[in-house]
């Protein structure tokens, strides 16, 4: 039997893994994947709370919006990454160092 706690632990793990991916990976596409993990952790939280605690539809609606917005953000992010790749011919995040003092 799944309880609320198990969902929250899974979402916490997803969140931490997402953060770790964003901090440690150097590939920009992998970093974008990390963002997706964090967003999905939040969406999972919303649905779990909606099912077990609050018993209203707010959480379900919110998670649908999260899915839509995550798609839009990924589209724009990937477009910029493609542009970056066309100019620099790499998607290594350490190459993005032109703007510094």
């Amino acid at each position: 039997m799944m309880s609320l706690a198990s969902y929250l632990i899974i979402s916490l793990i997803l969140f931490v893994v997402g953060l770790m991916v964003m901090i440690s990976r150097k590939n920009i596409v992998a970093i974008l994947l990390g963002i997706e993990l964090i967003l999905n952790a939040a969406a999972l939280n919303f649905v779990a709370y909606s099912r077990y605690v609050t018993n209203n539809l707010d959480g379900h609606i919110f998670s649908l919006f999260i899915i839509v917005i995550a798609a839009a953000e990924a589209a724009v992010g990937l477009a910029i990454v493609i542009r970056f790749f066309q100019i620099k011919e790499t998607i290594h995040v350490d190459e993005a160092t032109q703007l510094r003092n």
Partner: protein
Amino acid sequence: MIQQLFGFLSYYIPEIICVVLMTTLLVAESAVKDEHASRGKIIGYALGMLALCLFFLIQNMSEAPIYIFHNAITIDPFSTLIKIIMVLGTMGTIFLSYSSKDIYSNLKSEFAIMAVGVLTGGMLLASANNMLTLYLGIETLSILSYVMSSFKRDESTSTEAGLKYVLYGGLSAGVALYGISHLYGILGSIQFVEMVAKLPGLEGTNLVLVMISFILFFVGLGYKISVFPFHMWTPDVYQGAPIPVTAFFAIIPKMAGLAALVRVSFIFFTSNAALNVSWVGLMLVISAMTMTVGNVTAIGQTSVKRLLAFSSIGHVGLMILGIVTLNDEGVRAILFYGIVYMFMTLIAFYITSHLSDMYGTDSYDVFKGLIYKHPTMAIIMAAVLFSLAGMPPFSGFVAKFNIFAVIIEKKLYGIAIVAAINSVIALYYYVKLAKTIILGQADGEVKVAGFTPANQAVIIALFIPVLFLGIFWEKVMTISGNAVLFIK
């Protein structure tokens, strides 16, 4: 039910105008050929529609506060005044984008489309009354901003700016969302009013969890207004983006984020004492750090665009001080500061943009001896710099004075001293630039091409409020005083 919905729509006309403007601009853009004149017409149409939007907003100012769309949106004088500031800022930057060489000529109307889109997101954020509208506002604002910052798509710097913005923005939005999800679970709703009703009864673990969630939630808003720990992206993005975009970023997202921060602080942190104390403490620390980091880092800058970016961080730090008092005077001070800040920032970026178009760089050198070539523009720029530093008799002084007045009234002397020291630091780097303008040696008699009579007229028109709000500030102060937040 349906009738009520249509009744609500009448309050929502400004936002509807913006969305209609966006879609019609898309259609119009696909219809024109590559002629500069027809793009001028499109820009004129966009400015006209925004003026119409402004007209409806001014009408809304006098309406009683109201909740529409099942409590999702608040229309109160506070949000309406913030929207007026944002619409004026958008009109200013769209006009600037038309003459700027930084925006490719075939992307002029796209700039208007994106700017109006961000404006719509900002309006949503300013009047958000539940977590979903707030999140949608932040994301509408952010996603279009990512595109705007990489507008110079052939240049690696602009693309890099967009890339950094996407990565930092996505992370902070995700973290904020994770915080919101726990708030929803503990407080049982996404409506602000219902959430706040649960706050006084909280204790033990739940209280700690709510505090942590609010800090996570603050990451999202703090990132949009670029406060201290989340300001790292600001200078890079401001430097990489084209100048009209930078001017836009310095005004619209910041005002929208501040409006949301004010609303959230006032709704959530006046009922529960433990939460109130920790939130006010957080705001004080963040404000002090933001001011100090912004102003101290601004000293060493050689690019004027980057200097203005850091100084805008400093200004936001000062504006946050209006929140810590959690009273009407604080909100009034923020609103007045916002109005003045908008005009000053626009003028500074207008003049920087025309100079940078001419010389291809925005370092201090291009300002050298501007007074011998364009005396009016040089005097206005120097005056605006003094106003940004908060010197009387300009409006920047009145704005700064108001903030100091509210914090000293609350007996927060420590933070007042920090703010005063920061004003001195700010004065140093602003005066350094003003000195370059007035005492520097000009490189011959070459006139700046960008200062056409029309552009000069606009700059002078923008300068009038900066000058006169420093002396005749009562009227605007009354307007901002009446526009205090409506919370129920």
